[in-house]
């Protein structure tokens, strides 16, 4: 088996997406950066696409999560029910624990 990093977050953990502007093949969409969400599930560990895209191994594999964001958190003028959400797959190195009320 390939090397992997033990996951830092569990389902239900409150997280915040790093507000970073990385160049290259990044799989974290800009519209969630800096925003707070809740881990919906751990998807497993996968080779890091930011490395894979440049013919490197992407190892050790990194934990990948589905993070659920409230639409109203992402778009202050969102039109729809306040329970509406967007789920996004995010690699662990883009997440930090969120001590706030998320």
């Amino acid at each position, binding site marked *: 088996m390939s090397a992997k990093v033990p996951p830092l977050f569990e389902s239900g953990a409150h997280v915040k997406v790093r507000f970073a502007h990385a160049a290259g093949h990044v*799989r*974290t*969409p800009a*519209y969630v950066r800096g925003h707070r969400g809740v881990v919906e599930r751990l*998807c*497993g560990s*996968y080779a890091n*696409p930011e490395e894979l895209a440049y013919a490197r191994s992407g190892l050790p594999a990194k934990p*990948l999560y*589905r993070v659920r964001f409230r*639409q109203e958190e*992402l*778009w202050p003028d*969102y*039109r*729809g*029910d306040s*329970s*509406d*959400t*967007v*789920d*996004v*797959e*995010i*690699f662990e190195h883009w997440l930090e624990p969120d001590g706030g009320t998320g």
Partner: protein
Amino acid sequence: MTDDHDEADGHSHPHAPIVEEGALSYYQAMEVAVRELLIDKGILTADQVRRQVENMDSRTPARGARVVATAWLNPDFRAQLLSDGNAAVEQLGLEHGPYKLIVVENTSQVHNVIVCTLCSCYPRWLLGLPPDWYKSKSYRSRMVREPRAVLREFGLELPESTTVRVHDSTADMRYLVLPARPAETEGWGEEQLAALVTRDTMVGVAVPAKR
């Protein structure tokens, strides 16, 4: 522009003129170059490339429809499909490709819809190639920003109290919507049910209706 002609062989209908293709784009030229190198170096044969393209083109939403109809009929299969999509699909003898399948279920309270804002990730093994609108910048940017307005343009008006869950397919997961089974289909068989399940209902821009 159409070319309306009437020839001796009875070939009479308007269609776009058949013209020479234009110059190759940057990526088309790159694809040809890489393909020719792979063949020259003996890594792949032209027939293997052709067969793979043919295989990709042979996948249709009928596969996904069979998965959905089975889930409607068999509660154990449905439970497995929701907890481990790949294992459930394998049980039906279907391929799932190198990705992990996550199946999201529509209920009376929740409506799910799928998008890939970064490119065009799509459950190709179950639905075939994505439609052009799925790859358009407008669908990809608007579905996460104003899903209810986009769904309305597809003819799907949801009650305000329904929770809309958008799933942005950004990395190694692929998504399939398990639509709600239409009312008054009790006693229907798998084939009859599968006929109600279209591509768009499994992407989440429509819901199946009894016809």
